[in-house]
């Protein structure tokens, strides 16, 4: 996530990180024999979907204003 500069690739890498945590949650839920970890994994999936909506909205907004799609050059919050 830190070695690429395109916000799209950063979002994709973020998905991988969230899925890694999901896999750990489900594996330990199976090891404990309870389904509570699966509930948590479903909540993580919902949060990931929400984050993708907002992130892609930001990327499309950036591209419409013809800003460079490069996180190292996005250094101010002012519009």
């Amino acid at each position, binding site marked *: 996530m830190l070695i690429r500069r395109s916000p799209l690739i950063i979002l994709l890498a973020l998905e991988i990180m969230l899925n890694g945590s999901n*896999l750990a949650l489900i594996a330990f839920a199976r090891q404990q024999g309870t389904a509570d970890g699966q509930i948590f994994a479903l909540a993580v999936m919902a949060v990931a979907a929400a984050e993708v909506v907002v992130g892609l909205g930001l990327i*499309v907004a950036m591209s419409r204003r013809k800003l460079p799609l490069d996180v190292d050059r996005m250094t101010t919050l002012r519009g």
Partner: protein
Amino acid sequence: MDVGNILVWAVWFAAAFACLGSGVAVVWFSNPFYSALALIGNLAALAVLYLLLSAEFVAAAQVLVYAGAVMVMFLFVIAYLGGRADAPWAGGPTWQQVAAVSAAGAILVEVVVAVSLKAGGRLSSEPPVDAFFGGPHQIGELFLTHHLLAFEITSIVLLIAAVGGVILGAHSRKLEARVDR
């Protein structure tokens, strides 16, 4: 070891290595379209692993929500951006890249050490579960009894994300009109 066990091992092996390989491929490709396709492969391999862990409902939700909805949205945005979405590598190894890779390695070592110290011998034995485990019935029952607050908070998070997406789209259209003028 009977035939069923060998089959489970083979499926696990294939899914785990497909998962790792496609995860590396997502970061490796410089074309974001191929990265997104590799991520779809990664999600499918993860769904197979979830099935092996008897989490049927989560596997189905993974395929529907991620591969069906989220990745389609990703591919739409990549197609919309066209050539601008291309992401070349940042160049030679900067201190940030070196620090990122070494921090990821440190976290991996830490997790492996912590898990093996805490549960080393017990990892190979799994408690027996019935066919009820991980199905929609059990998930729905848990969501609406023990985890009702998490369920409601999830719905509020999704609602806020939808509103935020609409506001971002409308706002950027207004700004675009101002840039064009």
